[in-house]
């Protein structure tokens, strides 16, 4: 008998954002103005836990729902009681507020310990089940970090479970396919990426759940060391609205022309996200490279920048050229000159900051490589390119850390892509990706070499590994960055910080984050956002073999089956071809979408997935799992080709993050033509075969 602890979170409802939810001054989405709901994936996790309970035939298993949040978060606990939970725990305390993922995972892990000891008294016989990520944070870090704190295996991105021979076998998503795994032993943390049968509340259960007691714990009840803003390893320094995407809406008159445009724009690949995070004032220079100590173009926040600009002007007027000349009398004069712009304390901080010239962090800029079947994942090369840029600014080296059974042969390619040192950790136990074994190997290397920055690809593997390594090494981590820049916070005397910019609240706001109280700054970045450098085979680099003590016990999962490529729907693919109602029939969908998918895949050398509008799914042209849009899956590929899709707003919301949208529709007034980059007015049955031919010829 296993008991279940399900983690649920109350989140703002980003699916329903009204016009009055934005701050009229800044244009930023105000979280407090959104309605609160249970995080959709947590609702699925609750259903999944009950599903596990059913298939294991374990009628006596108990289910406890746990949440951390303000007092009103008890709504998600009532939600759980109305459906499946036997008991619920609310972790709430002002001291817990303002937490990042570390300071969330830590108290939750402590609460889980207390639940298993005092409420369930179940020893080691339990499973922690949670949604893969929350819609507001979108990081997927907390479950992995809870697993790390509790020293449990973590099975992430789970989509199904079977109960065989007295244990669970889980199906999960991996990069480019799926895998069936089992935990070698319990307890374990399971994160659910998709379970299509969320539970309905019953009338009686809802009434009971509204009256059932909620166990409420504060910070003192769990004694967790890392809580609130104080225990956090990252801090948000700026929140701003995302740049408005402007679609080109350009009509194209022949399939041949369109084929050319599609290939070119795909290859160019400068995403909106990448430009959004691009440094505006050129390459960062360390203080000693600057023309004068007063050159402060790389301040972390706009306010700091503004203050320094003002200070520089005042100093110029006062003819002060050396920071060390500024005595008490000079400070008085400066303060008089700036008026109310800043206070004495701020000036003292700024002057101290001006004297600082040493970077806050030392060490190399690292990339943790991902690979399969002896081939390096493209995202690793992209990150190596970015690491090169950062390392050049910081005047340090780029290291790529690669772990596996036999990886040294990939080193030269990584060096050509920009690496100076390749840290190869080879061990037969690392033959396949096992989160526990890999996080031990990588953490060991990080502890030894202490890089100042560690970057991971935000793939299923990277998003699993990064939080475990960062938690284990005591470092902050920012997920899914779209911008990485070096900046100073000279008011605090900190030079050469990594500023990490990422979308939050479902892409409705952007946040810039910095690491604190950490020896390394860690971030994951979405594949396709950073730019790969052209390979330079002449580049020289070093291979450093790093030995890690691993035993069989470090491997937590038993991999039963791996399926790559086929039979899976990967709407995270770089290119998606979607069919709508205009496809007329299932056969047409199959032929036209199928042929274009194939042609694009061959031409672009990437995975191309099939999508569909809701209407096409309704007509039975294709299975629902392919549905793209507000009620299906939201996608953000580099290329989205919409065939016979009218462009209803519900559909277009779901493709808003796409880089290039191409539309083909026979209706000249189709709304999609106003929301895409390139379009052809024409029947799909006519245009697609021409386009397929042209793609073969380009």
């Amino acid at each position, binding site marked *: 008998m296993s008991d279940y602890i399900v983690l649920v979170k109350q989140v703002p409802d980003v699916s329903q954002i009204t016009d009055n939810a934005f701050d009229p001054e800044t244009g930023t989405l105000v979280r407090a103005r959104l309605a609160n709901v249970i995080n959709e994936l947590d609702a699925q996790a609750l259903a999944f836990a009950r599903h596990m309970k059913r298939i294991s035939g374990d009628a*006596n298993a108990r289910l406890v729902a746990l949440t951390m949040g303000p007092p009103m978060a008890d709504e998600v606990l009532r939600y759980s009681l109305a459906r499946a939970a036997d008991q619920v725990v609310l972790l709430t305390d002002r001291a817990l507020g303002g937490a990042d993922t570390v300071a969330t995972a830590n108290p939750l892990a402590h609460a889980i310990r207390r639940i298993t000891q005092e409420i369930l008294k179940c020893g080691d016989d339990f499973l922690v089940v949670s949604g893969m990520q929350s819609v507001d944070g979108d990081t997927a870090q907390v479950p992995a970090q809870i697993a790390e704190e509790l020293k449990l295996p973590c099975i992430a991105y789970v989509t199904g479970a079977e109960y065989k021979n007295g244990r669970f076998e889980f199906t999960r998503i991996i990069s480019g396919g799926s895998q069936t795994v089992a935990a070698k032993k319990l307890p374990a943390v399971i994160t659910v990426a998709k379970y299509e049968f969320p539970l309905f509340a019953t009338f009686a259960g809802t009434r009971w759940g509204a009256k059932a007691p909620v166990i409420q714990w504060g910070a003192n009840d769990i004694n967790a060391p890392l809580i609130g803003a104080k225990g956090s390893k990252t801090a948000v320094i700026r929140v701003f609205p995302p740049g408005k995407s402007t679609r080109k809406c350009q009509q194209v008159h022949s399939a041949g022309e369109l084929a050319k445009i599609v290939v070119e724009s795909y290859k160019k690949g400068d995403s909106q996200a990448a430009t959004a995070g691009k440094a505006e004032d050129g390459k960062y220079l360390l203080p000693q490279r600057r023309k004068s100590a007063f050159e402060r173009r790389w301040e972390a926040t706009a306010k700091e920048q503004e203050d320094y600009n003002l200070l520089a002007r005042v100093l110029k007027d006062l003819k002060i050229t050396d920071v060390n000349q500024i005595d008490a009398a000079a400070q008085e004069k400066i303060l008089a000159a700036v008026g109310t712009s800043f206070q004495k304390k701020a000036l003292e901080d700024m002057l101290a900051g001006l004297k600082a010239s040493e970077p806050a962090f030392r060490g190399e800029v690292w990339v943790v490589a991902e690979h399969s079947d002896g081939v390096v994942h493209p995202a690793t090369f992209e990150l190596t390119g970015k690491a090169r840029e950062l390392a050049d600014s910081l005047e340090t080296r780029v290291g790529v850390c690669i772990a596996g059974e036999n990886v040294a042969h990939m080193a030269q390619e990584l060096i050509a892509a920009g690496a100076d040192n390749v840290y190869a950790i080879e061990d037969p136990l690392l033959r396949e990706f096992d989160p526990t074994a890999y996080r031990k190997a990588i953490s060991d290397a990080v502890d030894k070499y202490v890089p100042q920055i560690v970057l991971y690809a935000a793939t299923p593997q990277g998003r699993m590994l990064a939080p475990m390594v960062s938690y284990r090494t005591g470092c902050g981590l920012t997920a899914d960055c779209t911008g990485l820049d070096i900046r100073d916070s000279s008011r605090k005397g900190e030079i050469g910080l990594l500023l990490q910019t990422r979308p939050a609240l479902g892409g409705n706001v952007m946040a810039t984050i910095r690491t604190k109280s950490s020896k390394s700054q860690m971030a994951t970045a979405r594949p396709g956002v950073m730019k790969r450098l052209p390979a330079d085979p002449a580049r020289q680099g070093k291979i450093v073999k790093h030995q890690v003590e691993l035993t069989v016990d470090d491997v937590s999962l038993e991999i039963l089956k791996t399926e790559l490529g086929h039979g899976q729907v990967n709407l995270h693919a770089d290119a998606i071809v979607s069919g709508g109602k205009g496809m007329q029939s299932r056969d047409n969908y199959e032929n036209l979408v199928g042929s274009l998918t194939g042609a694009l895949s061959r031409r672009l050398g990437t995975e191309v997935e099939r999508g569909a509008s809701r209407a096409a799914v309704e007509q039975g042209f294709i299975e629902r799992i392919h549905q793209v849009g507000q009620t299906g899956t939201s996608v953000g590929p580099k290329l989205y080709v919409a065939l016979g899709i009218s462009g209803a707003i519900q559909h277009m919301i779901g493709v808003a993050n796409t880089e290039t949208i191409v539309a083909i529709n026979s209706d000249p007034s189709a709304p999609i033509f106003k929301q895409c980059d390139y379009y052809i007015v024409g029947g799909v049955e006519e245009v697609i075969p021409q386009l397929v031919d042209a793609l073969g010829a380009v």
Partner: protein
Amino acid sequence: MFAIKLKESNVANHSEYSKVSVLVVGAGPAGLATGIQLKVLKPELDICVIDKALDLGNHNLSGAVLEKEPLSTLLDAAKPGWRETDEAKLVLANVIDKDDIMFLLGRNMAFGIFPMIKMARGMGLGFGQMIHHGDYSLSISRLTKWLGGIAKGMGVEVLTGFAADHVVFDGDGVAAGVKLVDRGLNKEGHKEPNCVEGETVQAKFVVLAEGCDGLVTERFVEKAGLKRQSHQLYSLGVKELIKVTPAQYNRFTRGRVVHAMGYPIWTPVVGPGMFGGGIVYAGEQDHLAVGMIVGLDWKYHDFNAQDALVRFKEHKFVRQFIEGGTVVEAGAKMIPEGGWYAVPRDPQTHSIGKGNVMILGDSAGFVNMLKIKGLHNAIDSGIQAAKAIVASLDKPAAAAQRYTENVEASNIAKEMQTAQNFRLTVAKFGPLQGMPLSVLGRSLPKFHVEKDYEMMTAAPYRLKPSMSFDKDTFTAVAATAHREEQPSHLTILDRTICDTKCRPVLHAPCITFCPAGVYETIHEEVKPANPSNCLHCKTCQRKCPFDNIRWTAPEGGGGPRYKRM
């Protein structure tokens, strides 16, 4: 200390929670008023109010103009000091001080006819009731959400996301409770792994406050043999909340309501000839509500109320206030207009409802068409139902009769009677002759009128805009959504009628008039192709020219998500 009892499923063992003293179907103003008033009179009574909407207020749409009286009566007793609460100040911020009644002639001309209404009032004519000075102009979604909070605070159990299917009777023909709608069926009607069969909620008293054309109400009316002296007549209201500039809003002014007759739905002699009109109300700061209400007895096969709304918005008088604005919310709902003669009653006892089942508000049809208001009567009917329940606790079967006595003695009956002939007269003679004739008021006979759907002809609507209305955007801002994998809640009874009688002559008007674009022709077959876009207005059920469509409640939690309608 926290040991939990072992059990198979937490919810299966809570059968005691399936029983309740009073079950109210529909958490609108009428249903919530019932709950609140019951808690005032009998705090220990257990009361559940259920609603099919995901959240309070999500399925409530009205102009809305609210007469102060019944709300004040209700809240003075329930929540002393309510006027000073933040919610009251938000919901009731707009008190009407400018009451325009316009007659629109063509695209540019508008005449104010308020002085005539005032004169009618002076002469004691029915039209004189159409005065709104001192009323609140408000969002009914917000009103509902607020009342729901008050009800909950008093101990009423308000449960959203639960759709009711029908009243369940015991062996003696007395209502035993209400069966809820199944959830977790797939499109073919088979059970999914998460299926929850609709529970039967047992109740001593059942209050039906579902709003216009309620599913449970209409099924109950049929099953219990209730009769209407005259058919229910309906109209369809389509409404948009438009964000405008501060200058436009301030020029319109916060306390103003505009009711417009004439163009584009009625023009003397050349037509078209439909009953209804447009509205422009001030909403919250920088928001104006613009709507079009059209009697369902229109005869044009290609008419869509949204087309009339477009024309209305293009009219010079309206355009000045909304030009350049953004539609931030929209929705559609029917209004029961048949009046006092169309209230369903038991043929023997004349009770509005029967035994322990009472019918309230729009479900009963308490809309005063001379005032074009019903919200105050809905709240009042909730108060009367609560009083009736408390008076019949020992004899639940007498509740409906007691309720009816209360209603007959209340202001509801008084004003409904003065308006009882108005809409029938207009339906019988058309707006041109009917309106003037209706000043004869109660001295007119009860004219026999046809059902709305019988009026459809192959005639075209003369003022149809050239662009087809963008229903996708309309439903998107209505934020309507349903779980996709469920049986269609819309049924065409006999497909051959569509193919042989409707399409050849009338070209399937459902495709045009459904404000959500639910109906489409696919492979030469007319069907409810997009049930998940449905706004629950039920116009299709009442306007299909062959009475060939049935609307049932989809899984609870689906439908529009109005917030400021």
